[in-house]
């Protein structure tokens, strides 16, 4: 049997969830014997193959036009989509931004901050458009939710290992007891 293919990507995230994945340490060597890592921020392949993958592993919230595009493309190409980390599961700290109009948040960052000289809000048509912050499940259908900020390396290893063996991981309380 061919090894299951995994693709990972990050949306509006801090990269901590991917660091927690690397924190499986030497077990990484064990893991890559069982699965084929395709696109990922830590490899040179960035876009999930058009032929599809078994598991699409997404971290981060959706808070721009580009995040939305990446999330939808992963959904289209992955059989099982995993939302990893509080940003993907709940929208993360950026959710607090939604208490203000987006325009206000941009003004604060690019005009009001004390070190900014002659500020303005970036608006070139070539760059992304910010959006209200959303959890992944508000944008695409998610199959497995793995909460935590970040989820512990042990939990990530358990989830990946279950998926690699063709099972849907069962997340009960003791496994989530890490914060």
């Amino acid at each position, binding site marked *: 049997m061919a090894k299951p293919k995994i693709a990972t990507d990050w949306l509006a995230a801090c990269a901590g969830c991917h660091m927690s994945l*690397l924190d499986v340490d030497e077990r990484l060597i064990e893991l890559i014997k069982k699965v084929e890592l395709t696109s990922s921020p830590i490899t040179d392949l960035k876009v999930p193959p058009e032929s599809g993958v078994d598991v699409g592993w997404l971290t981060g919230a959706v808070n721009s036009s580009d995040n939305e595009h990446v999330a939808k493309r992963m959904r289209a190409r992955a059989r099982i989509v995993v939302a990893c980390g509080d940003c993907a599961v709940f929208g993360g700290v950026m959710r607090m931004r939604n208490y203000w109009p987006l325009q206000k948040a941009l003004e604060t960052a690019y005009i009001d901050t004390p070190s900014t000289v002659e500020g303005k809000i970036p608006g070139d048509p070539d760059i992304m458009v910010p959006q209200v912050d959303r959890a992944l499940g508000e944008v695409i259908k998610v199959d497995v939710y793995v909460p935590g900020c970040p989820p512990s390396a042990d939990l990530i290893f358990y989830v990946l290992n279950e998926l690699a063996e063709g099972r849907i991981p069962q997340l009960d309380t003791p496994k989530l007891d890490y914060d």
Partner: protein
Amino acid sequence: MAQKVMIEPVTRIEGHAKVSIILGDDGRVERARLHVNEFRGFEQFCRGRMFFEMPQITPRICGICPVSHHLAAAKAADAIIGVTPTHTASLLRELMHMGQVVQSHSMHFFELAGPDLLLGFDADPAKRNVVGLIEQQPEIALKGVMLRKFGQSIIAALGQKRVHPEFAVAGGVNSALTIEARDTIRRDLAARIEDAQAGIAIAKAWLNEHQDYADTFASFPCGYLGTVAEDGTLDLYQGKLRLIDCYGNRLEEFDPADYLDYIGERVEDWTYLKFPYYLKLGWPGGVYRVGPLARLNMCSGIATPLAHEEWRQWQQVNGGKPVQGTLYYHWARMVETLYALERTAQILEDPDVMSNDLYVPSDQITRRGVGCLEAPRGTLIHDYRTDPDGKLIDVNLIIATGHNNWAMSRSVEEVAKAYVDGTRLTEGMLNRVEAAIRAHDPCLSCSTHAVGQMPLEVTLLRGDGEVVERVVRG
């Protein structure tokens, strides 16, 4: 008619970072831009929170160097309550920081950039990554994994977690170092120092072998900023900020709390990452770089013996003047890893390190606090203002990768000028543009996310928008 070449990490479609190169009428490169494509808005949503929450909120800016934000926030919080932490608390915070420097630098060197140096820039992109390295050179890959694990476990020993630990609080730290933790760290130190030295040897051998290339590749004059101790030696945790010019002359040495007198930030319409610069020289005369290369250039030595010996060799590269070649970042990064390991040993020797004198209480609110340290990628500044109750009314963050924003664009421009002639885009150019950005180890998760290696799509457009040529890799 001018032409525009878009170099898009496929992330453009996904929205992280991309490069555009503008060609003049004669087909020569006029300028290059690095577009950073993410906005999260911490300056806004931290307003209204209490200042003492910041050591927990701001690490979520970056999961690669969360300890930098954790500690910068705690230092700003110390200043808000008008407290200088005890010697023990400072030592333990610095110890955690050393753990982070080791994990972050070694991850970059062995797991992200290393595959380029070890497997070659022209290796199969599908294999030119940490997985390929594990398969082809497992002993070397394992050194990286073990160094990273060592650094992460120092962080976890003090703060319970590897990513987003909970340790520093306003006025000090929340727990003492245990004897077991100290002994575990000590036990592995010698082996990790050897791993770091192996990394240094790899970097130096590579630079030696490719010296002409390293000396000319993305090499340009600019200032250098970093933190020094009282005696001018490298300090990653505290001290004064020193700024030198491209000849090595000292321009300034100042207390980080006064940063607004020296540093301004420029905003451009085409990127979400601001451009810090030295105010007295203006824009763009006052541009400078930060991070390992800048720090080895601006300091007057290193206070640990093995790293100091490396620094002496560093001094000889450009006859005592600052080293300008961007690829030298890799060597500097491993020298700092060695320093962080040696410094860890020094901290563990300090008689105060096991004390329980961890915290200085205070009921004062001074309403302003600046916290600054050298994150793995460079100088990090957190500046908070509060109301009389300690509720935040203003938050300003200058993040390491920002200081290098101009330099990354400039590096890309240098490379483009050397490898684009306007009519043809070569695969070699794609590789080198990528390498120029990557050598700065941009922590774009602090602003975007493209930490890894970027597959690129380059489109050469005519002025009327018609596609002349498209090259895709990755």
